[in-house]
């Protein structure tokens, strides 16, 4: 196996008795777009800050092309970064901002002019050289920040929730730009976000962070179709959870009892291999089907509400035990016409699309 481009090895960070990052390891390939996804306080930003050199890890190492980065101070790491807040230098123009890293590196004037122009062209802000940052929109400022972070061709670009201050429409526009820039430059990007949609849209691979640890690393479809933990299942895509009991298990699949005599077989089971016990059954709303006729293996539920969402319809239901289950059906589904609140229906699902977590 070849040496990984960027290798994060057993990074830990604690503040006194509080541990922010427990044991984070991953290898990132050259040119890869890796996203750290997780709720706030899950350690994703801390890991990124350790990469940037703003914080020292309590343990572990970071290797870039086989060389440890930890003893190198931030300003010598030659890493690019775009921050959550607007960090353009307010006293400099857009052109001077982008030129800043090159001036620090004492590049010749002609080269600076040429590269600033190319970087602004890359973020589609040609002709904005003489503008002051304060006169630009938030989206434009972040694009300038991106140009400034890329102008010195860093091997790695860090992005710490760079779009969180922007509104939804602008965010999607710039996500598209970031994808294009990633493809054009081939730079390795580490991107931090708490927005699963953003992560899915941008990334080659996603590392899902939870409580200072990585629960799972994989592509979007992998995480969606085969979540390793209940947390990942809940974080990527929409999900319902139903209490269940493991009756039997065989080769990663389980037979589950859902109470009231309902039984399902062949459900992928995740978690430590303790024989029988309590489990959570995860069902995707869009993988559930609804039947008005009684189905023996189905889950009996009562319709609570029906919401029209445009291209699909969400039916909120509840089991006799009071557990809410959302069902998403395509618009025009036959079961929906004349479906009424309070009606008793049966939910069925393909057991291979469900997941159980011990």
């Amino acid at each position, binding site marked *: 196996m070849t040496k990984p481009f960027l290798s994060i090895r057993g990074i830990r960070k604690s503040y006194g008795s509080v541990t922010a990052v427990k044991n984070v390891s991953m290898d990132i390939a050259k040119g890869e777009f890796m996203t750290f996804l997780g709720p706030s306080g899950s350690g994703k930003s801390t890991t990124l800050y350790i990469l940037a*050199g703003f914080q020292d890890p309590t343990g572990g190492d970071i290797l870039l092309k086989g060389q440890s980065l930890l003893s190198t101070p*931030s*300003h010598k790491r030659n890493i690019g*970064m775009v921050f959550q807040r607007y960090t*353009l230098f*307010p006293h400099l123009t857009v052109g001077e901002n982008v030129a800043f890293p090159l001036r620090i590196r004492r590049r010749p004037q002609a080269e600076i002019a040429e590269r600033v122009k190319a970087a602004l062209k890359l973020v589609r802000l040609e002709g904005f050289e003489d503008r002051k940052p304060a006169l630009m929109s938030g989206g434009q400022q972040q694009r300038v920040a991106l140009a400034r972070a890329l102008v010195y061709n860093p091997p790695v670009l860090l992005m710490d929730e760079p779009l969180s201050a922007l509104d939804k429409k602008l965010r999607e526009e710039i996500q598209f730009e970031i994808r294009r820039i990633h493809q054009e430059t081939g730079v390795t990007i580490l991107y931090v976000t708490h927005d699963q949609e953003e992560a899915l849209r941008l990334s080659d691979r996603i590392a899902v962070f939870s409580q200072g640890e990585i629960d799972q690393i994989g592509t979007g479809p992998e995480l969606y179709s085969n979540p390793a933990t209940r947390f990942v299942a809940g974080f990527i895509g929409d999900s319902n959870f139903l209490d269940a009991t493991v009756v039997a298990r065989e080769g990663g699949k389980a037979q589950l009892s859902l109470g009231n005599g309902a039984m399902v077989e062949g459900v992928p089971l995740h978690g430590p291999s303790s024989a029988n016990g309590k489990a959570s059954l995860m069902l995707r709303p869009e993988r559930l089907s609804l039947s008005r006729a009684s189905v023996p293996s189905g889950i009996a539920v009562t319709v609570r509400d029906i919401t029209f969402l445009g291209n699909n319809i969400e039916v909120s239901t509840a089991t006799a035990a009071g557990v809410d289950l959302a069902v998403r059906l395509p618009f025009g589904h036959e079961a929906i016409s004349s479906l009424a609140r309070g009606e008793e229906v049966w939910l069925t699902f393909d057991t291979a699309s469900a997941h159980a977590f011990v």
Partner: protein
Amino acid sequence: MAVTIATGAVKTKREGTLGYLLPALLLIAFFFIVPVLMLLMRSVLEPEVGLQNYEALLGSTTYLRVFVNTFMVAGVVTIVSIVIGYPVAWLLAIMPEKWSRIVLAIIILSMWTNLLARTYAWMVLLQRTGVINKTLMRLGLIDQPLALVNNLVGVTIGMTYIMLPFVILPLMGVIRTIDPAILRAAALCGAGKMQCFLRVLLPLSLPGIAAGALMVFVMSLGYFVTPALLGGTSNMMLAELVAQFVQSLVNWGMGGAAALVLLVVTLALYAVQLRYFNSARGK
């Protein structure tokens, strides 16, 4: 302190608020502008109508020396205050709030302590047998006590001490508004500590430096107590000269002329600051 009052009036002047400002404007008109105009009148009317007071003031080397002393001391005090005050302001801005509150309280308390008490304290410290000279001699750094008081050195030391809060407070305010993320961004762009300071922190704190410098320079130009107590009889400053004209010589004409020169210089400096630093901040 007249300058600070004027600053407040200019900054709060917005359309429709003139009515609320009227009492303040009247106060300034009656107790500041009118007396100044009266003094101006006396400077051109006494002892007879004409500019002879100004000729005497600006034509004589003795008085010119006073002007040079005044500007030199005010300039040195301003520069030293900023050089000492900047790191203090920076520390105050970045230290945890519970600590910065304590340090700030100490600085402000010293401002509230009686000016005479503080100035006499410096006389004790700086005199030939004072703590500073004794310590330096004991350390073997000097053989003879240094002349630290009754001259412009003493005036400069005493005034720098008194002026420090006036640079620290506005500087701290400006430095606190600088987002630390901007300095992190500069670091990742490749800027070391010195580059970060020179290329980012310093330019961004320039409005605070300008505000503090103007305040200190202007206050120093007209300062009386510290030069009178710590200065010598041979090296006078402008405020002392005015006091001498009015109190000892009862020459209101010359006193008025000297005061007016001081006022004109002050207003000119204020105009320069308004022109260059407020417009730069606005854009």
